[in-house]
């Protein structure tokens, strides 16, 4: 280091940033996006249907829900936790909203709102177990996962709740623009902003980095930790509502296994499960990468059993690409 000298020289020689380094840095900083773009290019070369407006609309409609879940998951992960309950909380969101609308005759907006509120209760439950009772996020959310799934089954009696058309599906019909896509885009922007520009977003990442230091800096870390689980649950419940809206049914089976996809989205987007690292928009890109893999294989009619195998290898490839472009120095 050239500028370690003591003294008060304010014109310290700054590191020269030559072009080559900048380009490499660009690749490193944007590796998830680059992988996504590559995937899009490859996909559009592989089949004609990929770039059709119909397919793009399908992708957007399909991915809106998983992406919301990935965003919520990102905040939990960044703060050093993990949330396995999202899939079940999606089911809670789907079933509660459907019951409110179809059995209680509620309007879709208050029903959505209430479903999200009830989702948040599950998130707070997990959050309290983690932040205040000291449980590991993995088990606490595993327990909530089981409980929330059970609750969804109990309240529906295991039968999907059918929604009249013209109720919840208003948020998927395109009057002006598909509201569901709009909501998703707005939320991506909002949460990207929240992460970068609000103290909440910053503290979440700080906690994932070193919770002790954050607490000693006068921040009530427990509340923040708890709140990340609440946010994750809120978004999961909303995602559940989306799914109910799309299929006009609220079913207790919604979201099974979604937790793993959400975590994978975050990790493909460069998040570290050790906390302190990860960015909303990259998690979204990670989610899209996962979604596209499925879409393109379907379009190409890849037989379904090998699909799993190929998907596994593509996940590996995406993560390895991320690691390779990011390899600065191993600390041994």
């Amino acid at each position, binding site marked *: 280091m050239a500028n370690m000298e003591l003294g008060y020289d304010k014109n310290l020689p700054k590191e020269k940033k030559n072009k080559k380094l900048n380009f490499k840095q660009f690749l490193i900083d944007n590796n998830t996006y680059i992988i996504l773009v590559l995937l899009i290019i490859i996909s559009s070369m592989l089949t004609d249907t990929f770039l059709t407006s119909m397919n793009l609309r399908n992708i957007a409609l399909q991915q809106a829900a998983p992406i919301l879940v990935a965003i919520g998951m990102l905040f939990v992960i960044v703060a050093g936790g993990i949330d396995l309950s999202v899939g079940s909380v999606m089911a809670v969101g789907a079933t509660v909203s459907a019951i409110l609308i179809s059995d209680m005759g509620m309007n879709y907006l208050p029903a959505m709102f209430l479903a999200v509120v009830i989702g948040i209760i599950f998130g707070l439950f997990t959050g309290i177990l983690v932040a205040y009772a000291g449980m590991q996020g993995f088990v606490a959310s595993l327990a909530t996962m089981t409980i929330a799934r059970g609750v969804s*089954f109990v309240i529906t009696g295991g039968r999907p709740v059918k929604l009249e058309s013209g109720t919840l599906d208003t948020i998927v019909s395109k009057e002006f623009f598909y509201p569901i896509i709009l909501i998703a885009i707005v939320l991506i922007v909002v949460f990207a902003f929240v992460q970068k520009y609000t103290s909440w977003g910053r503290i979440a990442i700080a906690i994932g980095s070193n919770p002790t230091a954050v607490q000693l800096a006068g921040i009530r870390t427990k509340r923040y930790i708890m709140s990340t689980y609440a946010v994750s649950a809120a978004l999961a419940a909303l995602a559940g509502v989306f*799914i109910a809206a799309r299929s006009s049914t609220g079913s207790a089976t919604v979201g099974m296994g979604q937790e793993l996809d959400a975590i994978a989205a975050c990790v493909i987007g460069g998040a570290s499960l050790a906390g302190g690292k990860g960015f909303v928009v990259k998690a979204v890109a990670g989610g899209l990468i996962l979604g596209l893999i499925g879409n393109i294989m379907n379009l190409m009619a890849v037989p379904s059993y090998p699909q799993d195998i190929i998907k596994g290898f593509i996940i590996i490839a995406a993560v390895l690409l991320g690691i390779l472009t990011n390899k600065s120095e191993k600390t041994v």
Partner: protein
Amino acid sequence: GCNSSEGSSGDGKSGNEKFKVGFAIKTQDSPYFVSLVDAVKEYAGAKGWDLTVLDANGDTTKEAENMETFIAQGMDLIFLDSIEPDAAVPSINKAAEAGIGVINLDSGVGEGAKDITTVYSDNKQNGRLVGLTYAEKMADKEIKSIILSGAKGNVAGMERRTGLFAGIIEGKTGITEEEAWKQAEAFDKELTSKGKATHAEAKFTVAGQGWGNWTEEEGLKASEDLITANPGLTTVLGENDHMLFGAMTALKNSGAEGVDIVAAADGAKAAYDLIKEDKYYATGENSPYKVAELGVKIAEEILVDGKDMWSYEDITLTKPAAVTKENVDEYYEFGF
């Protein structure tokens, strides 16, 4: 709670022994099975029996546990809706060893099972009958379809789709049933290994297979990509009704019109409604009520009337049937 043990309504005829009966159900995550449990509960309850239901949650190991639990509890008789035909055999035989008879409901079991009988609407035949009617409708016309399957590795689903393929091939080419089964199996193998399959002579193509996990929302998602990839579909095939409801939404969204909806087997009331409205071509009847009624009747004959449990045929079928607009009223009340 819909599958609790509160079976004994106490209004059994006086002098009737209060029998302990178990029902090991494969899952409770879809309406069919919920209805099946409800129906068995209702009929068994009416006899004053004490019915315990255990749910395997789709896991064969859990199913074996549940069966063992029943044996340990010394049930008088066990109903079983099994996940995998062959995987259920050891449990059934263990029960037999312990002197407990097993009646299979809804799902067939593998060879060598020492069970009383299997009460079900044969998935294969249901599928075949639906295939035959559909072949009749399409006559010489080309069928360009996609299929929505339930869960990977699910045997009932496999039987249903193979049946459907057999029926279509048989109906369109006029070969024997036996030959049709062979070709249907080859057709299914082709579908699994290549992702699509064509039977040239029958003018029958399945252009893609999606997995909808038996539910409407996943049926929607699974069909969207396939519908986009395959313009000009004549037909969406499916292994149950709910997934096809999802496919109908996807079709509507894509603007496709006049696509036939054909389910190999199921019988949801909602599907029957659509059939009446001509929006749904056909489904095979698989009524949980009929299965439950017949199953409980056999149980009664054995437990109450003392009939020899080994005197039953291997399979006691509720009559398989393709439900179409013509005959839907006949079946409506048994829908679930």
